[in-house]
């Protein structure tokens, strides 16, 4: 039996994880100072890039962006398909994971449980690529759970820290309650069509099924279930805690990839319920506006840098689902492409922002810890005020951090501006008065967001360095280089947004293929 390259890629990432753990464990027990687990996981990711290269070559050669003609692998009732959506997410997750593995070396250092952390990162990569190439609804749920299960121990990396434990249990309880709703939705689809394969479900729908209460209930259950993971607004309460308490490298992965993977899973499951696309589009637009409003307003009153970034993730999820909702609502490819472009650029810029904040935290950690002897069990967060004048001590980190923040705020010529602009323009082309009001509100909230990004940049550049900053520790090169690469990517995508088209156009065509059937 020949396996398509993308299955090899997933298998490789998942099967290599236990070896990384075992060898890392032996390395720790023999008390060497080589940090084998990190080098081994970098090696595994490098081999993964070869697999991804093969996959992409096969994908672009075949030119089959559509789900129907995509590379397929079937085993019994399990179907895996690698299509346009999968390409986008697979490239994003591999890029960020490589940056993060380089970065984690000094950042996580030799903390307790570091070998588990590397093995889990590999598993998470495999689970996300599996999730985005799942071809049937139950398989989708299983990969989704695999992603969630690898995520919990990563959030609770500091197992002796009370706040991490609190964030972890909140995340676990809310996320597993959400997955119950997804399963109920899967059961309803099975009941009304007798199959779970996404293509067969689509084909099995005759027009009488669409719009029946059962069908709508299934879709709503999917939105609620996956909505917990992508932090749709009433279900978002776990996100700021989990993203702020995890180590910064993990926050970057959670914010930049995991919520996006949840969004792709939601789109996939809704794409099976085609026909009611206008309903789902309207719902997504509504949730999008809620997310933009709540995320931006809550971020305004945060004092902690990582909590602020976490709330800004909620707002940015809003822009993504606004674009994708417009695409489903009016059926334009421009909207879908804009939504996916924002997904890509948010992944890069939020990853960069969390990593840069983590680098500053790494530099200042010892200084900050000294003033906080009352509660030694708690990893103190980085407050905005702690960063006074950091640009003088850490000019490069401050520069890339400001670039990421300006891109998140949507200032030209950075990637965040181009993607937000495309989302708004795609919506405006629909010529719908209600939609226009929503878009104007979204644009105004984008201006409000400057109200919390600008003071941060101001702190970095226009204040006298605090004592803690002046005595901060040097940040090693292996943390700086991944940051510079991500920053370059943001600038390049901002100047030449058509470069992203290679990834976003197939995804958009793939998403729309089910509406215009």
């Amino acid at each position, binding site marked *: 039996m020949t396996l398509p390259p993308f299955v090899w890629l997933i298998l490789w990432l998942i099967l290599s994880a236990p070896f990384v753990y075992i060898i890392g464990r032996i390395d720790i027990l023999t008390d060497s100072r080589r940090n084998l687990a990190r080098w081994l996981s970098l090696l595994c990711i490098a081999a993964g890039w070869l697999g991804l290269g093969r996959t992409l070559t096969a994908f672009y050669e075949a030119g089959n962006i559509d789900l129907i003609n995509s590379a397929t692998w079937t085993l019994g*009732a399990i179907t895996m398909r690698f299509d346009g959506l999968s390409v986008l997410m697979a490239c994003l997750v591999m890029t960020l994971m490589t940056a993060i593995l380089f970065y984690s070396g000094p950042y996580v250092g030799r903390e307790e449980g570091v070998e588990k952390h590397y093995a889990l990162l590999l598993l998470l990569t495999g689970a996300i690529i599996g999730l985005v190439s799942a071809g049937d609804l*139950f398989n989708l749920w*299983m990969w989704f*759970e695999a992603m*969630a*299960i690898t995520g*919990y*121990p990563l959030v*609770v990396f500091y*197992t*002796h*820290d*009370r*706040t991490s*434990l*609190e*964030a*972890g*249990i909140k995340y*676990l*309880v809310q996320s*597993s*309650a959400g997955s*119950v709703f997804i*399963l*109920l939705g*899967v*059961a*309803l689809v*099975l*009941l009304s*069509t*007798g*199959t*779970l394969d996404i293509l067969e479900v689509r084909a099995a729908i005759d027009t009488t099924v669409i719009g029946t209460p059962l069908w709508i209930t299934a879709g709503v259950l999917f939105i609620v279930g996956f909505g917990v993971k992508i932090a749709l607004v009433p279900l978002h309460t776990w996100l700021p*805690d989990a993203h*702020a*308490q995890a180590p910064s490298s993990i926050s970057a992965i959670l914010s930049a990839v995991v919520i996006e993977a949840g969004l792709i899973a939601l789109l996939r499951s809704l794409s099976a319920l085609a026909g009611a696309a206008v309903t789902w589009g309207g719902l997504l637009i509504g949730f999008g506006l809620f997310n933009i409003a709540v995320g931006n307003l809550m971020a305004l009153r945060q004092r902690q840098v990582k909590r602020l970034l976490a709330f800004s993730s909620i707002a940015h999820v809003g822009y993504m689902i606004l674009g994708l909702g417009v695409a489903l609502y009016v059926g334009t490819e421009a909207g879908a492409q804009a939504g996916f472009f924002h997904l890509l650029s948010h992944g890069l810029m939020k990853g960069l922002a969390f990593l840069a904040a983590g680098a500053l935290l790494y530099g200042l950690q010892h200084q900050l810890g000294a003033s906080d002897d009352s509660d030694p*069990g*708690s990893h103190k967060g980085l407050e905005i005020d702690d960063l006074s004048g950091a640009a003088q001590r850490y000019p490069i980190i401050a520069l890339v951090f400001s670039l990421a923040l300006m891109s998140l705020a949507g200032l030209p010529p950075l990637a965040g501006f181009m993607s937000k602009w495309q989302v708004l323009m795609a919506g405006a082309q629909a010529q719908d008065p209600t939609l226009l009001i929503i878009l104007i509100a979204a644009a105004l909230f984008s201006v409000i967001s400057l109200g919390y990004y600008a003071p941060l940049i101001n702190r970095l550049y226009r204040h006298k360095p605090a004592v803690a900053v002046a005595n901060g520790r040097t940040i090693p090169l292996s943390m700086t280089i991944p940051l510079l690469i991500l920053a370059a990517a943001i600038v390049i995508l901002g100047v030449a947004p058509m470069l992203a088209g290679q990834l976003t156009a197939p995804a958009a065509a793939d998403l729309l293929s089910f509406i215009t059937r």
Partner: protein
Amino acid sequence: MSPLQLSFMGIIALLGVGLYALLASRNLIKIIIALQIMTKSAILALVVAGNATGRINLSQSIALTVIVVDTIVAVLALALVVQIKRQTGHLDAAKLTDLRH
């Protein structure tokens, strides 16, 4: 009343009990039990759906997989609860408020 309707009532009742327990209890172990009850309602729904559409083999294998995944989640959750008890000395979800600001 048809068997399908009857089993639907069972599913909704189980889900309702689970959701109520999830929202009303403060003890972390009881919260995890509530999650388990909710998952059981989903498993029942899958088996009922498979039975009604003649795909009982598919839904049985799905149900087994869900039970395995569910156990992994429960083990992880209980490990977290043990650690919370060690660090804070209590199991009260309402007292875990370090992050509320």
